[in-house]
């Protein structure tokens, strides 16, 4: 009997990493993506390979996931990352007061860190606000979201996975109490078809609720949008974070020839209808200037916004919602053959994939060890080979 067939809906970082893990464990995998790889949430994220520093005080569960995955990704995709670390800088007495908590948090979450003298920090990052009071170095990094996903998918394809972009899932096929496949429309031809599967994995992030509803179950995602403003010059090499609890415009991520200021956060209803509030862009630039005054002399190159797939918790402010992920086996909602993975971050995509693939294994009574921690990924270019 041939290996079970698993359909992964969504080719963002979660879907890509999941396809890789499934294929590596010998499943027959088909990835269905309605658009281009990483065209939404993943594509328009921070590009930040989290050290966990951002969450080490308020959300230590996420922080620990981040640092663990950070160090793993450095091993499995070494040449596809900008690895120049990050600086958490204190600009005000309030920030300075936060330092103790921050350092304690790093220690509790075993995030490598070292405080560096203000003078040295300014040598390393000449455009940094000269008024800074303290700087702590942590192993932040920068990735390229689209290529990040391609690396996972290229490796998955090598292991037999089929990746279909511009193929939109319009319905889930249900027989009795279980999902047995999906109905798709191929936008290349406009033709619809049905694809059977032993298990369907819903990795659609902010759309997870929408897809889950097709299967008659509810997933408590709370899509919250964030805006990124990219300026036309690379003003820093290290990721510059405000040493305080996460807030709007408190981070400047360098990438390629640019610097990216992030981010805001507002709850949205439909992740397909994100209209950026005009004031957010101005606010990003204003906040960014506090960290790097030279942003004054740059030109805005691009502006993007996409929805984060946060897991809703009873009446919590979206900044307070944990950035960790949840895996829902919908058999507890009375639906078999259907799993949803949501929440989390691109940095933790591999861990999310491991978790959901384990659950797929349990459901099918197959137990194969996860090997993604030590399996180097192919270059993203091989996705097209």
């Amino acid at each position, binding site marked *: 009997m041939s290996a079970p067939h698993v359909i992964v809906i969504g080719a963002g970082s979660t879907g890509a990493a999941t396809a890789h893990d499934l294929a590596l464990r010998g499943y027959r995998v088909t990835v269905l993506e309605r658009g281009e790889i*990483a065209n939404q949430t993943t594509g328009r994220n921070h590009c930040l390979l989290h050290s966990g520093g951002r969450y080490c005080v308020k959300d230590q569960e996420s922080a620990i996931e981040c640092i663990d995955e950070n160090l793993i990704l450095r091993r499995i995709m070494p040449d596809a990352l900008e690895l120049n670390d990050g600086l958490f800088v204190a600009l005000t007495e309030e920030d300075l007061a936060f330092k103790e908590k921050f350092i304690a948090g790093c220690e509790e979450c075993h995030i490598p860190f070292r405080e560096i003298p203000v003078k040295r920090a300014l040598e390393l990052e000449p455009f940094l606000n000269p008024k800074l009071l303290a700087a702590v170095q942590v192993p932040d990094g920068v990735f*390229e*979201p*689209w290529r990040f996903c391609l690396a996972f998918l290229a490796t998955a394809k090598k292991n037999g996975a089929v990746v279909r972009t511009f193929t939109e899932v319009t319905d889930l096929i249900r027989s009795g109490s279980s999902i047995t496949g999906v109905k798709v429309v191929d936008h*290349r*031809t406009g033709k619809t078809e049905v694809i059977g599967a032993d298990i369907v994995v819903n990795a659609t992030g902010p759309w997870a609720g929408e897809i889950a509803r097709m299967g008659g179950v509810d997933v408590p995602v709370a899509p919250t949008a964030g805006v990124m403003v990219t300026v036309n010059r690379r003003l820093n090499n290290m990721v510059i974070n405000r040493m305080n609890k996460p807030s709007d415009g408190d981070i400047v991520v360098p990438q*390629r020839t640019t610097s990216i200021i992030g981010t805001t956060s507002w709850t949205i209803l439909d992740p397909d209808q994100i209209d950026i509030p005009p004031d957010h862009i101005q606010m990003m630039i204003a906040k960014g200037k506090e960290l790097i005054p030279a942003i004054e002399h740059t030109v805005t190159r691009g502006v993007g916004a996409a929805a984060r797939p946060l897991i809703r918790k009873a009446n919590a402010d979206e900044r307070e919602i944990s950035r960790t992920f949840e895996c829902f086996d919908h058999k507890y909602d009375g639906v078999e053959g259907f799993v949803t993975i949501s929440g989390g971050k691109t940095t933790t995509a591999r861990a999310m994939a491991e978790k959901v693939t384990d659950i797929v294994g349990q459901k099918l009574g197959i137990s194969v060890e996860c090997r993604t921690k030590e399996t180097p990924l192919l270059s993203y270019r091989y996705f097209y*080979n």
Partner: protein
Amino acid sequence: MAIEVPVRMFRYKAGGEPRFETYRVTVPDDANVIDVIEMVWRQDTTLMYRHACHHASCGTCAVRINGYEKLPCIVPVKEALRGRSEITIEPLRNFPLVGDLVVDVAGFFQKQIASGLVITRPAEATLDGARYQPVEVFNESGGLEARPYNRFENCIECGICISACPTMAATDKFFGPAGLAGIHRALQTTDDAQKKSLLLALADGEHGVWRCHSAWECTEACPQNVRPAEAIMALRRELIIHKVKTLFGMGARR
């Protein structure tokens, strides 16, 4: 402030007839053309277009705006409307057409694989453009090691140079501006003699640098200032020197 924009959009589905459809969308006046495309998609979700980062790093969204190869994520709508009443959006040329604004980039990336271009490079110091001295950064085991900062290469592999190149218009065999620029970069960044000679052999092929007609369109169109034409000229120079040396038995034969 919002503006209404008429968009003449190239539409094509496999088996159908290529055609232009005109849509009217409303976007903020500081929007970029990618936002216009997205608004068209909101009207008709069967529209296929590639996009991811919206800040000119992924290179997926390249199209022709009013006939010019551009990255819509960094072209302001105002600029695209300058001197005209509507924006025309078409897919890149010189690639197989998949549908609507989407072209098949597989062949292009296969050449990129061969080019040997490494996607990260040492970062320049932000102030004077000089290379950073090695600095202490954390490594994958959480310890500190000394090495220069790195960053992603300038080339985002968007395919714009391929669409702008008159030689690519004539033949897929041509290795192409991006690929040759990649070879040039790879030669600068490797010390491996065997790899170097393989890269030179690749550039020296009938369909390598010699196939270029020196129209300089790649350099004109490149949104990342990679200057592929200059790279091609540099490779020609290197190869000619190599040939002359070989002719007089001064250089090792490849």
